[in-house]
């Protein structure tokens, strides 16, 4: 096996890692916003339910959550569970949505009441106030913690191998079984490159939102 053929195989695993990454973001970014609304709901029972869910999800390892979603249907109810890839997506989506929701909540609550009131006295609807006035200020505020969390997600994709999703680290491990160790360490190159790109992207975004001050 040549160097390049191994790198190509690792690359295929990396594509799966990327898939997990992007699909998780597509699900968790909006879902997190919805959960953050729930955690700020005026009705107490809603708040209590959401807070309990967030507590459970943030209080247990993601790896355990992946295993529960994958194995629990079969073990507990003796029904055929879902495939490993969807199971990973569900676990990641919910897990990251919960973390994001707390970041959103922090950002939303940091916006001064005056901004909402200014919108109200100008006859704006709640939706208009949120989307036209508050949201961009929230995004500006939460960009640094968000980028942290999103970078963690890149590396968390490696947890998917626990239920045999063939992502980057899984592929590397198959080489070690054949006595080739270096691909395992080489995976760092992929992760580092990805994080490097994200660092640049978030840096640019922050700069772009520097045109105003909150």
């Amino acid at each position, binding site marked *: 096996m040549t160097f390049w053929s191994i790198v190509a195989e690792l690359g295929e695993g990396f594509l799966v890692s990327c898939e997990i990454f992007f699909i998780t973001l597509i699900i968790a970014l909006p879902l997190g916003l919805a959960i953050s609304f729930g955690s700020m709901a005026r009705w107490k029972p809603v708040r209590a339910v959401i807070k309990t869910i967030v507590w459970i999800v943030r209080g247990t390892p993601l790896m355990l959550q992946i295993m529960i979603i994958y194995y629990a249907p079969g073990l507990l109810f003796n029904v055929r569970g879902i495939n490993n890839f969807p199971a990973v997506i569900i676990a990641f989506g919910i897990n990251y949505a919960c973390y994001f929701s707390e970041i959103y909540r922090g950002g939303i609550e940091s916006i*001064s009441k*005056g*901004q909402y*009131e*200014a919108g*109200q*006295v*100008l*006859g*704006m*609807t*709640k939706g*208009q106030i949120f989307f*036209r*006035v508050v949201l*961009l*200020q929230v995004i*500006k505020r939460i960009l640094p913690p968000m980028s942290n969390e999103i970078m963690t997600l890149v590396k968390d994709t490696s947890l998917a191998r626990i239920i045999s999703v063939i992502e980057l680290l899984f592929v590397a491990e198959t080489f070690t079984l054949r006595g080739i160790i270096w691909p395992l360490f080489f995976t760092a190159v992929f992760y580092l490159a990805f994080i490097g790109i994200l660092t640049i992207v978030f840096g640019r975004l922050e700069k772009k939102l520097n*045109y*105003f*001050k*909150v």
Partner: protein
Amino acid sequence: MTMETIAKTEAPPFLEVKNYRKRFGENEVLKGISFTLQKGEVLAIIGSSGGGKTTLLRCLNFLEIPDEGELYLGGERLFGADEKVKVSDARVREKRLHFGLVFQQFNLFPQYTVSKNIMLAQTLLAKQDFAQKKAAFAAARRSAPKEKRTQLKAEHKKILTEIRSGQKEAIEKKTLSLLERVGLSEKKDAYPYELSGGQQQRVAIARALALSPDILCFDEPTSALDPELTGEVLKVIKGLKSADSTMIVVTHEMEFAKNVADHVIFIADGLIEEEGTPEEVFEHPKSEKTQAFLRKSLEELF
């Protein structure tokens, strides 16, 4: 009493607030406030902090809903605490549009330029209006005979395009004239953080005026400003005074209240302690509380 004042007192009031009460938990902030205001008048509300001035203003703008009381504007009953049915959000928004409010902390939208700050609410309302017209046209087309529909569609499209460009033009024109009125035409593309406090407050005034409220309220508009910047804001407010602009100003600036207001209300502990013309309240206060308050606010000056 001269003939003029008699005529004035007999005209039906433009704004009538009856027995406004508001409590927050144990704390009763407004204990039955009633007053009237004529169109074109400037009302100054003075009093020590915590007396309920700001709460009253917030109740007028429906940012707080009074526990008791009624409000009439131009003869129409706009609010009654006894109304059993919960008022819809849309209705509250409509009511709010009768009043404008300029905040102590300006509360400009930081991500928008000065002109966008002034235009935003107008644009949103225009859009709403446009959507309604569009829907009305669509309904009219549906009820029209089939063969006429294509022709109607073209006609409607033309009218709608005209409406939209007309709206846009009107909003831009209005925004520019408002900026001129507050003396900030050259700042129209600046962002709020690039402006001084006084300039920000002037933009906030223009923004509040953009929706042409019946009554414009000011909540201590100069309290957050450095002393050297209060003058420019007060000057703008004074300049707004005209026969058809009715204003309510909560203020600590006694000189301003004296010179600009037609009517002064002194509020203490949630009640109107004294009211009358500036001369009556400032020169011949009847209540001891008013006398003490005025003495104190004069002392602060020196």
